[in-house]
């Protein structure tokens, strides 16, 4: 066999394939960055007329800022309600799966929680508007009656239950799986040695969790909550279907308020001209808000990964 290093028959073939393939995969990666940039760019370009238009032409007649800020507040209110409900329950359910449930049950439970995430948002919205809203009416009436002196519970309570509080509850159900799944993943990564050290000192299960699991998982819980916040801010259908929207109000028990995402979904199909541009501008605002929230969440995760050495 008289072959030389520079000319061995077989393997020489396909050398071009290497550069084509690596070029293709690099191109795909760059394309993703380009798409993200394009999202921002196209939204901005289409939104531009709104920023240039005279204030009285924008919906509400007082310029874009006056139009958007009640929506931003409404979005934040809905998201905060959702977080306030979903964070404790989500973390506790994650604890249930990782440290309380017997191994035989933990797996199916985790699966059921994943199913919760798989149900399409429109179905949650439909359920929220037909089942949940009406069943919450008595509770709202009671709250307004007994706690009406607190502004957020001031009456008269909505008779349909289609309020921002209901929307927040539906959002909470939708973001619960995010918090649970991520927290659970981090809870089970707690070093067994630490847990056993705590138990060997005579700690009860809760003391062990408080001493080892929670400090270890704190950054993970925070970032999971941030990701859930991002989702809650941008979720459309639950709010569009559930909320009977209106101007900004402090009471959570009355109809009123609106979120950016729902405003777009409800008005876009019939919009044209400047209204179209307005809604895209609203979308741009939503995009920027969620972008910031998500980047903070990711930054926490990244920093935390460097510390824990887990990859």
């Amino acid at each position: 066999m008289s072959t030389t290093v520079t000319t061995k028959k077989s393997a020489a073939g396909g050398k071009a394939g290497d550069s084509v393939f690596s070029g293709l995969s690099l191109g795909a990666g760059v394309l993703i960055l380009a798409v993200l940039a394009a999202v921002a760019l196209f939204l901005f370009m289409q939104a531009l007329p709104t920023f240039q238009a005279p204030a009285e032409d924008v919906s509400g007649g007082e310029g874009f800022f006056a139009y958007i800020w009640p929506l931003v507040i409404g979005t934040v209110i809905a998201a905060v309600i959702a977080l306030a409900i979903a964070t404790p329950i989500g973390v506790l359910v994650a604890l249930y799966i990782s440290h309380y449930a017997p191994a035989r049950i933990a797996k199916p439970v985790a699966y059921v929680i994943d199913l919760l995430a798989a149900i399409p948002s429109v179905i949650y919205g439909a359920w929220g508007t037909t089942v949940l809203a009406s069943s919450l009416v008595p509770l709202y009436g009671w709250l307004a009656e007994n706690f009406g002196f607190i502004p957020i519970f001031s009456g008269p309570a909505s008779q349909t239950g289609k309020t921002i509080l209901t929307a927040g509850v539906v959002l909470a159900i939708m973001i619960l799986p995010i918090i649970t799944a991520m927290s659970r993943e981090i809870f089970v990564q707690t070093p067994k040695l630490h847990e056993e050290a705590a138990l060997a000192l005579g700690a009860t299960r809760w003391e062990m969790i408080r001493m080892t699991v929670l400090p270890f998982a704190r950054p993970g819980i925070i970032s999971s909550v941030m990701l859930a916040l991002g989702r809650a801010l941008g979720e459309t259908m639950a709010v569009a279907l559930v909320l009977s929207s209106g101007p900004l109000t402090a009471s959570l028990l009355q109809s009123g308020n609106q979120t950016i995402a729902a405003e777009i979904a409800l008005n876009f199909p019939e919009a044209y001209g400047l209204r179209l541009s307005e809604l895209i501008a609203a979308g741009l605002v939503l995009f920027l808000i969620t972008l910031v929230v998500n980047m903070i969440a990711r930054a926490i995760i990244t920093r935390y990964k460097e510390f824990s050495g887990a990859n």
Partner: protein
Amino acid sequence: MSTTLLRNQTSTPPTGGRRSRLTRNQRPAWLVPTIGIAAVVVGAAAAALVGFNVALWAVFSAVIFLVAAPVAVTAVEGRRKGADSLVTYLVYTAFILAVVPLVSVIWTVLANGLPGLNSNLLLTSMNGVTGATDNAAAAGETPVLGGAYHAIVGTVSITFWATLLSVPIGLLTAIYLVEYSRGGWLGRAITFFVDVMTGIPSIVAGLFAAALFGLLFGPSTRFGFVAAVALTVLMIPTVVKNTEEMLKIVPNELREAAYALGVRKWRTIVKVVIPTAISGIASGVTLAIARVIGETAPLLVTAGFATAINWNSFSGWMTTLPTFIYYQIMTPTSPTNPDPSAQRAWAAALILIIIVMLLNLVARLVAKAFAPKTAGR
């Protein structure tokens, strides 16, 4: 210490003689179940005072139990055990709270959807179905006419195009991240922004596609492919993340074995790495499809709304199952008799849930059944 002794004396009558140091201060086995039963009974009574219903009964019982049981445990076993039991009961309560809506949603969809699930729904569109048709149906003169066939067609076409666009891009990006970039700055940037992309609100993805095609073809351009582009934006990050995970767990030894045989890198990737990871990749893609198939918001702003069957994703408005459900609920075909519309909506929701659950199941089965047999070590 003295308080412990005192409590010990009061809680265990001295009839049984001295108890072992190891078992003293233990609550009797009947304590917590008894409190549970008592909580249910008292809860029923309290609920009856206000106006009895099952939800109220459950809430009252739970609250009473959550207060009484830890207090009782604290009294018998001390503060630390009391706190431990409180958290334990809270954890279980949270779990029940999380499952209740799931059960309620599934029950609602089944109860409302099953009556409407018939051949009419599956095989006819809404073409020609008007308020008058529904009024007749509501009056009992005809069965509920009209169906979701056009929406199923739309869902299938749009999801097909979205998959066709996002799988190659997502797969190649994951390959770049795992096989080529190896921690370079570009790779880190792509990883970061793919993570950020996961959090893009779906409505924003829809607006992006609408804005993009609006610039190309004029404002309010709406057809199936625009929606597919929107869904692609949502699908890519899922495909990338899943594929990346799967490629990472392919042992490096297999790559080295191929390189040592004088196999080129791209052939190693195509013929060794990807076949080894294919089941995981396939199940990841299936999960990504399951995620976007239920998307509603981006379709509202990109695909328009149609009542007739349209197989062509490149021209004309399209309806998908989620938008069908949405419009049937929000704008019933007959405003005076919304029941036929609601029936169609719930039946369509049932179909959608079945599709999503099937996709999830398939993903799990694929991942399990075709997992590569690892070397016997």
